[in-house]
C-alpha cells in the first residue's frame, strides 16, 4: 500500500489536516497543537500571508462588560435581531461567546494585542450595533504572528498547495489530495480529522470595476471548502445570500468600518445625508442597508455618492489617517494617488462586487456546523467564512480555535487508523490534472467572465424564480465547457480548479435562493416575486448532494430563548 501510494504522489500523515491557513485555519492549528495533536496546514499561499487578513485587519467585535449593551446577553439578543432567520444562537454562543475571553488573551500573548499603546481599547460603533462593539486595533502583523505561533508549536505546513479533493472510507473523511501550484507535485495526506477553512467565495459576480481580482475579500478564496464538503455529502446552509458592500470607487478595499465608525457620513450629489431615508440608524445602519441606500441613490440618478469625513475633529482625522491602512494596507496609497485628502475632500464610493458570504457580520454562509463546529460528515469540521455560523474577524478567531480543539479531540479519541483507498486517489489524481491534458483551448478566464456576468444578471441583487432557473440552466451548460478548459501550467491549473469551485457554489446559491420564497437582508436576497420578509422563513435553507442531484430542506430556528450557559 505505502509503495503504491508513493508511486502516485508525495505522502503525508497527520492527526488534524487544516485546509486553508488564514485567520480561522491558523487558530485551528494552534488549538489542535495545544491539545497535543499533530497538525498539518495546507494553503495555496504561504502561512505568513494567506487568506482574507493577509495584509492586515483593524477591527474585532467583542462585548467587554462595561455597560448594559456590553454583555453576552445583550450581544446575543442583538445577534438574534440583526441576523434573524439565518443565525443559530446556540451555535453562536459556542463558537464565539464561550471562546471570547481566551481569544483576547491569546492575541495579547502572541504579540498582537487588541489594545492601544496606552493600554485601553479603542472602540467604535457601526453596522447597526447597539453600542461600540468594534475594537479598533493594529492587525497588520496578525497573520505572520499567528503563523509563528503555529510553527513554534510544531505545525507542519504545506505551502503553495491547492487541495483538490477529500478522501473518505465511505463513513469518515480520511484525508485529502492536492497539488503544488508551481511544480505540479501531487500530495496525498492521510488525516484522522479535517478542518476546512478556505473562506468565502469571490470572483463569483461581475466586478463593477471590471477587474475580477479587485475584490473586497481575498480573490484566492473561491469556495474550495464548500465544494469539497458538498462532494462528500456534508450539508450546507445560508448559501443563497449575495453579500455586497460599499467600497471606494475603483478599489474594492475594506475600510468602510473605519470610516463610518469614526463618524463618516454618506452623502449624494446634492450633499444630502441620505442614509436616514433608508434606516433609522442612518450612517451606522447594517451593511445591507448601506448597500441598498448607495445603490438606490446611484440608480435613481442622485449619484455620485461619497463618504464625507470633513467634519471630523483633527484628533479623529489623525486617528483615521494613522489606522486606515490597518484594514487594507494599500488603501491610504489609493486615496493619496487619487489626490483625496479626507479632511478636505469627499471620497467617492460605489457598491462592491457580489460574493458568497454571510449576510451579516455575525453570521456566516457555508458548511452547516453544530456547537462543536462539526459538519454532518463524520470527521469533517469547518471554520471561518466557509462555515454557516462564522464570519468576520471575531468569530473566525474564536470559532477557528474551537474547530481545532474539536478536531483534535475527534482525532485522538477515534483510535481508528484512517484507511486510504487507492482507486479513489487514482481517480482524484486523474481529475486534478485533466485540464493539463485536454485538447481544448478555452481559458478559465473566459468561462469565469461569462459566469460572473450571467450570475449578476440572473441571481444578483434582484432575482426571481424564472431568473434563478435560467441561471441554473446556464450554469449547467457552462459546466459542459469544462473538459475544454486548458491549463498551460500549474498556476493556471489552480485557477481552473477555482473556476470549477466558483461554478459549483453558484449552483448552490441559485438552488438555495429558489427555495427561500421571501426577501431577507434587502439586496442580499431580494426576490422580486416575493418582495417582503416572511416570518415563515425564520430559519435556514439547508442543501446537500443526493444521487438525484442537489436537495434542499428548511430548518426552523428558535429566537425565543437566549442561550447563556
Amino acid at each position, binding site marked *: 500500500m505505502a509503495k503504491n501510494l508513493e508511486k502516485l504522489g508525495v505522502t503525508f500523515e497527520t492527526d488534524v489536516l487544516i485546509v486553508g491557513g488564514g485567520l480561522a485555519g491558523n487558530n485551528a492549528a494552534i488549538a489542535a497543537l495545544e491539545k497535543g495533536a499533530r497538525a498539518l496546514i495546507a494553503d495555496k499561499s504561504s502561512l505568513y500571508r494567506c487568506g482574507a487578513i493577509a495584509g*492586515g485587519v483593524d477591527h474585532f467585535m467583542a462585548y467587554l462588560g462595561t455597560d448594559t449593551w456590553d454583555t453576552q446577553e445583550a450581544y446575543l439578543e442583538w445577534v438574534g435581531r440583526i441576523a434573524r432567520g439565518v443565525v443559530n444562537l446556540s451555535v453562536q454562543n459556542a463558537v464565539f461567546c464561550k471562546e471570547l475571553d481566551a481569544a483576547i488573551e491569546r492575541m495579547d500573548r502572541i504579540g498582537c494585542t487588541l489594545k492601544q499603546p496606552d493600554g485601553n481599547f479603542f472602540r467604535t460603533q457601526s453596522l447597526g450595533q447597539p453600542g461600540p462593539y468594534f475594537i479598533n486595533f493594529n492587525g497588520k502583523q496578525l497573520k505572520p504572528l499567528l503563523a509563528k505561533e503555529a510553527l513554534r508549536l510544531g505545525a507542519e505546513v504545506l505551502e503553495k498547495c491547492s487541495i483538490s479533493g477529500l478522501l473518505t472510507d465511505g463513513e469518515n473523511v480520511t484525508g485529502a489530495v492536492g497539488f503544488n501550484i508551481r511544480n505540479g507535485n501531487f500530495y496525498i495526506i492521510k488525516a484522522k480529522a479535517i478542518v476546512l477553512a478556505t473562506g468565502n467565495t469571490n470572483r463569483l459576480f461581475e466586478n463593477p470595476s471590471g*477587474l475580477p481580482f479587485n475584490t473586497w475579500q481575498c480573490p484566492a478564496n473561491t469556495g474550495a471548502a464548500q465544494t469539497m464538503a458538498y462532494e462528500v455529502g456534508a450539508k450546507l446552509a445560508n448559501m443563497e445570500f449575495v453579500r455586497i458592500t460599499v467600497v471606494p470607487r475603483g*478599489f474594492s478595499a475594506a475600510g468602510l468600518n473605519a470610516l463610518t465608525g469614526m463618524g463618516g457620513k454618506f452623502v449624494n450629489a446634492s450633499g444630502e445625508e441620505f442614509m436616514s431615508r433608508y434606516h433609522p440608524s442612518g450612517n451606522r445602519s447594517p451593511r445591507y442597508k448601506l448597500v441598498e441606500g448607495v445603490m438606490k441613490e446611484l440608480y435613481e440618478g442622485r449619484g455620485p455618492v461619497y463618504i464625507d469625513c470633513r467634519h471630523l475633529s483633527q484628533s479623529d482625522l489623525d486617528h483615521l489617517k494613522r489606522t486606515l491602512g490597518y484594514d487594507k*494596507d494599500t488603501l491610504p496609497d489609493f486615496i493619496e494617488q487619487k489626490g483625496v485628502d479626507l479632511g478636505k475632500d469627499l471620497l467617492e464610493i460605489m457598491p462592491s462586487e457580489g460574493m458568497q458570504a454571510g449576510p451579516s457580520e455575525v453570521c456566516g454562509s457555508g458548511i452547516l456546523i453544530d456547537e462543536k463546529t462539526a459538519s454532518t460528515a463524520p470527521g469533517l469540521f469547518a471554520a471561518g467564512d466557509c462555515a454557516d455560523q462564522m464570519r468576520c474577524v471575531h468569530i473566525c478567531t474564536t470559532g477557528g480555535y474551537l474547530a481545532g480543539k474539536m478536531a483534535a479531540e475527534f482525532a485522538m479519541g477515534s483510535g481508528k487508523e484512517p484507511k486510504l483507498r487507492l482507486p479513489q486517489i487514482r481517480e482524484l489524481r486523474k481529475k486534478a490534472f485533466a485540464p493539463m491534458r485536454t485538447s481544448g483551448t478555452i481559458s478559465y478566464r473566459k468561462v469565469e467572465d461569462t459566469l460572473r456576468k450571467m450570475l449578476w444578471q440572473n441571481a444578483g441583487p434582484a432575482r426571481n424564480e424564472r431568473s434563478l432557473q435560467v441561471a441554473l440552466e446556464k450554469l449547467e451548460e457552462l459546466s459542459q465547457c469544462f473538459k475544454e478548459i486548458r491549463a498551460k501550467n500549474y498556476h493556471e491549473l489552480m485557477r481552473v480548479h477555482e473556476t470549477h469551485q466558483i461554478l459549483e457554489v453558484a449552483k448552490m446559491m441559485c438552488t438555495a435562493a429558489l427555495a427561500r420564497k421571501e426577501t431577507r437582508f434587502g439586496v442580499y436576497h431580494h426576490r422580486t416575486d416575493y418582495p417582503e420578509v416572511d416570518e415563515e422563513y425564520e430559519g435556514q435553507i439547508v442543501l446537500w448532494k443526493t444521487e438525484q442531484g442537489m436537495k434542499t430542506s428548511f430548518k426552523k430556528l428558535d429566537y425565543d430563548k437566549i442561550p447563556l450557559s
Partner: protein
Amino acid sequence: MPPVIDLQKCIGCGNCDRHCPLDVIHFDGVRNIPYVKYPDECWHCGSCRLDCPVEAITIRFGPEMLYL
C-alpha cells in the same frame, strides 16, 4: 496595476515571491530577481511591500482604478 519592484534596492531574498497570496510574484532563479508574472491577478493587499526587508516595493494603482 500591481507592485513595482525597484531592482536597484532588491536583495533577492524571495519574500515577495513566497508570501504573495495570489501567486502573482515569481522569482527568476537565473537572474536572482523577483518579477510580477500575473499582474492582472493582483489583490493589492500589500503583503509583498509589508514583508520586503529593504523597502524595494511600491504599490502603484493604474488609471483603470484611479479614474473609474
